[in-house]
């Protein structure tokens, strides 16, 4: 990992098109501004990782037809209750 020290107002450029700017430092909270091309998605790491994790957990391992039948059965039960 490349480690750089920055003060408030200073920036880091990544490649030709991505710029991070330290906007403010208040106690433990640092506000970082990100300029990047539109096609590059920018996310808080913990959110991205949580979605990655949820996707991995959601992968099914049962037999598709059986699982689908079970889910449809449950769903119709719930529907009929209303």
């Amino acid at each position, binding site marked *: 990992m490349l480690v750089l020290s920055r003060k408030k107002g200073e920036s880091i450029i990544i490649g030709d098109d991505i710029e991070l700017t330290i906007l403010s430092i208040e106690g433990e909270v640092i506000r970082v501004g990100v300029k990047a091309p539109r096609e590059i998605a920018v996310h*808080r790491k913990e959110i991205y990782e949580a979605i990655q994790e949820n996707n991995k957990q959601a992968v099914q391992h049962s037999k598709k037809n059986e699982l*689908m039948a079970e889910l449809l059965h449950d769903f119709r039960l719930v529907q009929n209750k209303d």
Partner: protein
Amino acid sequence: MNQITEGEVGAAIQEVFFEKGLPGFLHLTRFIVDQADPEAPLAVLQSIEDEQVWFLIGNPLAFFPDYEFELSVDTKEELGIGEDPYLAVWGIITYRGSINLSTMNLQAPLVIHMNNSKGKQIILNDPRYSIRQSIMPDAGQEVAPHAGS
């Protein structure tokens, strides 16, 4: 690429292309959406490249009628969305043995542009929606704490 064909017993099968893959599965771009029962808002998302990878997905609006979000400019560009698009939205379901225990990811829905079969999993960053939203009608609560906002 834009094919919807009739499968067994009136099932609709559509091939979709996720150019950027899915978080956790960035290398998988080609999927099939297989909706076994066209009357039920449930389907299977099956990877074409890795048959071991498949998900249960549901139409979020059928379970959460107030669900709403906007598409960012870059998402619209990536999916080739212009005026009046025909879009399908799906939430990945984590099925835990029964519908009572199952949850849907409302924080990161799958958006498919039906006109060109391009899809993307978008991250909403909306504090109203959880990654693990219980799909039972009465349970408005999330099942597990979601990642920080």
